[in-house]
C-alpha cells in the first residue's frame, strides 16, 4: 500500500539546509500495523506527513496504492486524502468551536455525503467509541482520553484505508493510552492499515512491525 524509495526531505532556510529524511525506503502492506520509532528530530513526523499527503518529499518516490504520489499538487493531494487517510494527533486537534458530533462529521462533509448517511455513520462511530453520550459537548468539556477518542472517531468515520497516528497517546495517562492503543488495534484487525509514530515501546508493542529512524534514515526494522 505504501512504498517509499530513497525518500528525502530537506528544509531550507536562507543559510541552512536541514535534511529531515535521507533516503528512506519503507514498504507497508495493506492491513499492516507499523510503528515508527526514533529520537526527537529523527524525521518521524516528517515521514508521516509525507505518507499522509500533507507534504511533498524533496526527492525519491512515494507510491500509494500503486500510484506515484510523490509530486502531486496540493489540490490533488487533498483529493487523494479525502476518505482514504484518517489522522490521529498527539494534541487531538479538535475544532474548539464545533461540538463532538460536528467534529466527527467533518470528513464526511468534504466527501459530500448525504445528510442521513452522515448522521448514521457519525452516530455509529461515536457509539462504537463509547462517546455517543457526549455528542453535543464541546472539546473543552471533555477529558484528554475522551478527546482522543473523538479524534479517532473522526479519523475512522470515513472508513479510510490508512490511519496515521502521530504519538496518539503522548498527551494521555497510561489507562487512557492503553484504551486508545486497543482501539487502534481493533481498527487494524477490521482491515485498516495503521502507521503510528511513537516514542513509547509499550505502544510500539501493539504494532506488527517497528521501523527505527535516526537522523532521517531507517536504521533497523523488526517484527514484533
Amino acid at each position, binding site marked *: 500500500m505504501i512504498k517509499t524509495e530513497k525518500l528525502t526531505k530537506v528544509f531550507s532556510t536562507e543559510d541552512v539546509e536541514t535534511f529531515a529524511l535521507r533516503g528512506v525506503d519503507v514498504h507497508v502492506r495493506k492491513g499492516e500495523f507499523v510503528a515508527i520509532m526514533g529520537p526527537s528530530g529523527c524525521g518521524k513526523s516528517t515521514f508521516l*506527513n509525507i505518507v*499522509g499527503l*500533507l*507534504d511533498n518529499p524533496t526527492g525519491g518516490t512515494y507510491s500509494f496504492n500503486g500510484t506515484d504520489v510523490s509530486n502531486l499538487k*496540493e*489540490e490533488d493531494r*487533498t*483529493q487523494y*486524502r*479525502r*476518505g482514504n487517510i484518517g*489522522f490521529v*494527533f498527539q*494534541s487531538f*486537534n*479538535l*475544532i*474548539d*468551536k*464545533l461540538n463532538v458530533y*460536528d467534529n466527527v*462529521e*467533518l*470528513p464526511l*462533509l*468534504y*466527501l*459530500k455525503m448525504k445528510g442521513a448517511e452522515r448522521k448514521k455513520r457519525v452516530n455509529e462511530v461515536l457509539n462504537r467509541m463509547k462517546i455517543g453520550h457526549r455528542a453535543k459537548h464541546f472539546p473543552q468539556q471533555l477529558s484528554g482520553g475522551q478527546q482522543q477518542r473523538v479524534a479517532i472517531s*473522526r479519523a475512522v468515520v470515513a472508513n479510510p484505508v490508512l490511519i496515521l497516528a502521530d504519538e496518539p497517546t503522548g498527551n494521555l495517562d497510561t489507562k487512557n493510552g492503553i484504551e486508545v492503543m486497543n482501539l487502534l488495534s481493533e481498527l487494524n484487525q477490521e482491515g485498516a492499515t495503521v502507521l503510528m509514530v511513537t516514542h513509547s515501546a509499550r505502544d510500539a508493542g501493539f504494532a506488527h512491525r517497528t521501523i527505527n529512524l535516526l537522523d532521517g534514515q531507517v536504521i533497523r526494522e523488526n517484527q514484533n
Partner: protein
Amino acid sequence: MLKNYFKIAFANLIQSRVYSLISISSLSIGLAVCILLLLYVSHELSYDRYHEKSDNIYRLCQEVHPYQAPGTAKYLADNLPEIKSFARILPRDNILVKVDNQIFKEDYVAWVDAELLEIFSFEFILGSAANSLQQPGTAVLTEETARKYFGDENPIGKMFKVSSEYDYTVVGVIKDIPQNSHFTFDLFLTLADGNKMFSENWMDNWGWWNFLVYFEMSDRFSKPDLEAKITELMKSYNVTDAPVTQFTVQNIKDIHLYSSHFLGDIQPQNSITYVLIFSAIGLLILLIAGFNYINLLTANATTRVTEIGVRKTFGASRTQLAMQYVSESMIVFFISFCISLILVRLSLPLFNELSGKELSFYFLANVNILMSLLGMMIVLGVLAGWYPAFVLSSYSPVKVMKSSKSGIGSGFKFRKILVGAQFTIVIVLIACATVMLRQISFIQEKELGFDKEAVLTSIFDFGDEAKYNTLKQALLNESFVSGVSVASRIPSGSLSNEGRVRLEGQAEGIAISYVHITFDYFRTLGIEPVQGRLFSGEFETDATEAVILNEAAVKSIGIQGNPIGQTLKCNWPKSDRIIVGIIDDIYFESLYNKVKPVVYVIDYSMAYHLIVKVKPSDLVGSKNAITEVCQSIYPDEVIEFAFLDQILEQRYQKESKTFQLMGFFAVLAIFLACMGLLGVASFMMASRTKEIGIRKVNGATISEVMQMLNISFVRWMIIAFIIATPIAYYGMNKWLESFAYKTALSWWIFVFAGFISLVIVLLTVSGLSYSTARRNPVEALRYE
C-alpha cells in the same frame, strides 16, 4: 456544508466578541456613511431628470451667466431648424401679490412662455399643460401657493393682482416643483401680455439680459456646431465694439452640477467638485471599515490555525476553505448592512441639517437602489473576505498543525500596511478639513472694505424721489440711525448691471459694471476714498456729471496719471462724467471671483435697495423700529429687513456646510481607524506575549517594552504621512483654485495633520502596550 459554515461563522462571532463588535460596528458605520452619501450623491445626480424630455432640453448660456435678451430665443429658433421649440423664463423676486385683501410678498415668481409647460414635465393637479398660459392674464400656481391664496376652495378661475396693477386668473395648479430641480417657482405668469407689462417693443430690447432660455432640441444635433452657429448668429446683436460673446448650451441635467462658473444663477447650484469630494469620502470611509474587517479577520485567524489545519487534513480544498471565509464575510456584511440601515434612519435628520438637503429614507425603498445596495454589499463581502480566505486557505496543514503561530506571522506586515493605508486616509482628511476650516475663516474674517456690521437692507418700491427723501428724513430722525441710502446694487449682490465707459481721448471703450447709487451710499457703508472725494450734496453737478471708480476700474480703463479730473464717457445714463474720487477694491461680490472694475454714478431711478446703518447697541429693536417707520410711509408695501452680515454669511453657507460635513466625516474616519488599530494592536501584542515575558525576565522596563511595541506603529505613521501629504496638498490646491482669494497652503497644516494622527495612534496603542508591558512575565511565559 453551508450549515457547517454558518455554525462556525456564528460560533466565531460569539466567541471573539470584542473583534466581532469592532468589525461589525465599524462596518455598520462605514456602510451607513456610504448609504447616506449614496443618497446625497444620487439626489445631486437626479436633478431635472424627472422631465420626460430632459435629454433634449438645453439652456442657452453666455460666458459668465445664463441670462438672455427677450428676443434671443425666437430669433435663434427661427434660424436654427434643430431647435424644435423654446421657452423663456423671466424670474422675479420681491413681487407683491394681492388676493382679495391679503397681500403676499413672493420671491419665486416667473413670467414664462406657455411652451415651458409643454417642454418641462410639471405634474398638473388641476388644468393641463396644453391649455395653460396661452392667454394673456393667466397663471399657474403650485399646490402650496394655491392653498396659501385660496385655502381649500377650487382655485381655477380665481383672480389675483400682481404688483397692485395686473390681474391674473388661475388656469392650472401643478404639484410643488420637486427639490431636485435647478429652479424653484411658486407662480408661473404668462408672458403673453408682455406688451402690456413691459413696453410695446420689449422684444427688441437686446441689452435686457434677464431671461432664461430653454430649447427643446431635435434628437440629433451637434452641440459644438450649434454653439458656433448661435455665437455667429448673435454677433449681429453684439454691441459693436464689445468682444464677441461666446454662447454655449447646457443640457438641463448638467445645470445643477456644472454651473458654478456663472456669476449668479437662478438659484445657488452645487458643484460636481463637492459631489466628487463626498463620493471620495464615502469610499474612503468604506475602505477604512473594510480594512478593519480584513485586518481583524486575518488577525483573528491566528486563533483558528487548528481549525484550518484540521479542515485541510480531513479533505477541505483551498476553494472550500476560501468559500467558508467568504461566506463568513458575507454574514458579517449582511448583519452590518441591516444595522447600517437603522443607523441611516436615525442619522438622516442630522445629515439633512448638515447637508441642507431633504433626503428621505424611503428613497431606499426603490427596488433599483435596494438591489444596487445589496449588490454592493455582496461585492464588498466577497472582496473583504477574499484576502483572508486566500491567505488562510494557503497555509500548509503541516505548519499549522504544529500549532505554531509563527506560520501565520507574515500577515502582520500586511495588516500594518492596511493600518498605514487607513492612517494615510485619516491624515489626508485631517489636512483637508484644516485647510477648509482656514479658508472658511479666511473668507468670514476677511476685511471686505466696507462696513457690514449693523447695516440693514430691504427691497421695496420707494416711489418718487421726494417720497424717498421723506423716508430718509424720518429714518435719520431716529436716534439709532446713522446713515440711509438707496442703490441699484449693494455689496453681497452681483454686479450684473453691465454698461460701457470710454476715457475721453481713447478710441475704444470697455464693458464695465455700473452701480447706481444716491448720496450717502459710501458713508452708510463706511467706505472712504483712497483718492479724491466721495459724492456730496454740496456739489450740485455730482448727480449728473461726476463718477467714482474703484481701483480695478482705473487699471481696466487704462487711465494714465492722476485719474481725478479726467472725463469718462458713460452710457448708463448716457453722459460725460468727471472722475471725482477713487475707492478701494472692495469685495462687492464673492471671494470666489476677482474684484471687478466698477463705476459708481448717482441715479435715483435705478435704485431699489435700501440700506440703513444703525448703532450696534440694540439691533433687533432697531430693525423693528425701522420697519415700523417704513411701513408708516409705505403702508401698501410688504417690508422686510435683513442684516447685511447675515446675507454675506449665507453666501458661504455651502462651504460652511461642506466643511461641517467634512469635519464630521473626518472624525468618523478617525474613530473607525482607531477601532481597527486597537484590534490589530491587541492581536499583535498577544502574539508577542512570550517575547515580552523573556525581555522582562532579562531586565526590560515597562517603558522600554512600551517603546518597543509603539515604535513599529510610529514607523508606519511616518510612511503614512509621507504618502498622505502630497495627496492632500494636490487635492486642496485644486479646491482652493475655485476661490479668487484664498488662504495660504502652509507646510504646518500637513505637519499638524500628521502630528494629530500620531498622537491619536499613540494614545490608542499606548493603553494596550502599557497593560501588555505590565503583565507578570512568569504568567506570560506560562500562558505561552
